[in-house]
């Protein structure tokens, strides 16, 4: 795979570069930044993440299963009168139901996030530039299927928008 990457110092020039590349219909492989850049996802045309849905599904599952479990224990498995409460003592079951919901929702979204992003113990994702987690913004493009002319255009776009360095990789 042939890669070309541009390095930027400023958030503003990064956004400009991304916008101008996209305006020329050039596909960006990835962008790396030391912090979440405001407006970058729109500039790159990233779709909104569906991850909150994982939390919702997990939370709904947690709430329903938590409540049913308690109801099952108190009405079927081990019915016992405690404190004069009815077997199906709904108000008593609310706290645990709520905790189940939050626990399942939180773990669902975090696991979905880690799996989807390929993050986890032992994950060894490629690091293009170590300074990308410090003070540098990196735009990476895949030029395997791109001709000379197009690659030249990318380079000029980088230069126009104030890239402080351009790197080629095989």
């Amino acid at each position, binding site marked *: 795979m042939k890669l070309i990457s541009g390095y930027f110092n400023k958030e503003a020039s990064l956004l400009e570069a991304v916008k101008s590349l996209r305006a020329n219909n050039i596909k960006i492989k990835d962008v790396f930044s030391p912090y979440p850049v*405001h407006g970058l996802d729109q500039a790159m045309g990233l779709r909104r993440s569906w991850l*909150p849905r994982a939390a*919702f599904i997990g939370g709904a599952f947690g709430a329903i299963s938590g409540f049913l479990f308690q109801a099952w224990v108190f009405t079927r498995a081990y019915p016992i009168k405690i*404190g*004069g*409460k009815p077997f199906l003592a709904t*108000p*008593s079951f*609310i706290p645990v139901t709520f905790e189940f919901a939050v626990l399942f929702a939180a773990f669902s979204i975090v696991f979905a996030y880690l799996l989807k992003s390929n993050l986890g113990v032992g994950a060894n994702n490629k690091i293009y530039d170590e300074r990308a987690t410090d003070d540098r913004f990196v735009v990476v493009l895949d030029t395997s299927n791109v001709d000379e002319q197009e690659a030249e255009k990318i380079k000029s776009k980088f230069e126009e928008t104030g890239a402080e360095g351009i790197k080629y990789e095989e």
Partner: protein
Amino acid sequence: MKSNIESIMENYNITFQFSKKIKTILAVFIVIGVASLAYGIFAYSPTKVWSALLLNSVNFLTIGLGATFFVAVHIITQSGWHVSVQRIPEAISMSLPFGAIFMIIMLFGLNNVFHWIHEVHHDPLIMKKEAYLNVPFFITRLFIYLAVWILFTYVLRNLSKKSDLNDGLKYYNKSRTYAALFIVFFAITIVTFAWDWLMSIEAHWFSTLFGWYVLAGVIVKSFAVIIIIVAILRKLGYLEFITKENIHDLARYLFSFAIFWMYLWFSQFMLIWYANLPEETLYFIKRVDNYGFLFYLNLILNFLIPFLVLIVRKFRRILWIVTSIALVVFAGQWLDHYLMIFPGTMLDVQKIGIFDIGLTIGFIGILLWTVLQSLTKAKLLPKNHPYLQESFHYENL
């Protein structure tokens, strides 16, 4: 896109025009209210009529009060997002003097709703409370609350209006002291106000949480009313500068305080249900047994519907959906007051009928009239507010 919003703001000098047509509609509302009142006096016992008046007066008063609270909180927290809608809670808070008038009228009907007034000399339990529950002190307290609330409301409104003329920052900084003082006073008096006018209806019953529970309801209701007024103004062609993010934020507030209200409702109910002490449980037994449907409907309107709808991000950004939910919550809070008052004042089980609804329509007419009238008095955008720009340049996740 940005420059578009900026040009709107720079040229924005519009005040609301209260047209004849709207005035006529509101006049019809008020006529319905008056007719219902006349019908009620003719058809029902004085206790029922006064209870309905109490419900609507408290509801009316706390809408204005909640709006002042909204303004004050956003001043002391130095928030910026709300500036685009700030003039709306300000206008709502201007209804406070009318609420005060209704409360003063209520003083003539105290005998009909508060059973402690005639039992204070022979009910041993109420005799113990006489130092607090006696008519002169009760009335004095009311006048103190009303006077201070109205004073602060006017001071904050005037400082905000003055900021339109010249230096916004100067008046803004001035208002911070008053806002802090108001919040301190409000935090204490809303609790005692709730004890006086709602908890003492059933003078034997007590709950330490009651005041905060009422406060949570007031806050939710004030958000609901702000959203409804925003929607009305949008419909009439104003407030085109309000962004989706502003609506999103109002909806988030409505959503989170609906949950907070539910949390306090549940805390109070759960503890009383669990401990099951006769002197406390009676309050809920009355309501569950006699008003079972309304009792659960209260939870559905105030919590379940707003929770299930506004949990979806997309819905929080669509004005008509948010407004419908605000209307549901508004009705829910009315019902909550109904459940606080009627099971206590009326011996026999009541049904919500034409009288109750008609009277409420009348009060809504007066509320909207005062709010729209005060919207004509100031520009719809506080253009010298130091955080004005922030209100248009932020994004919700």
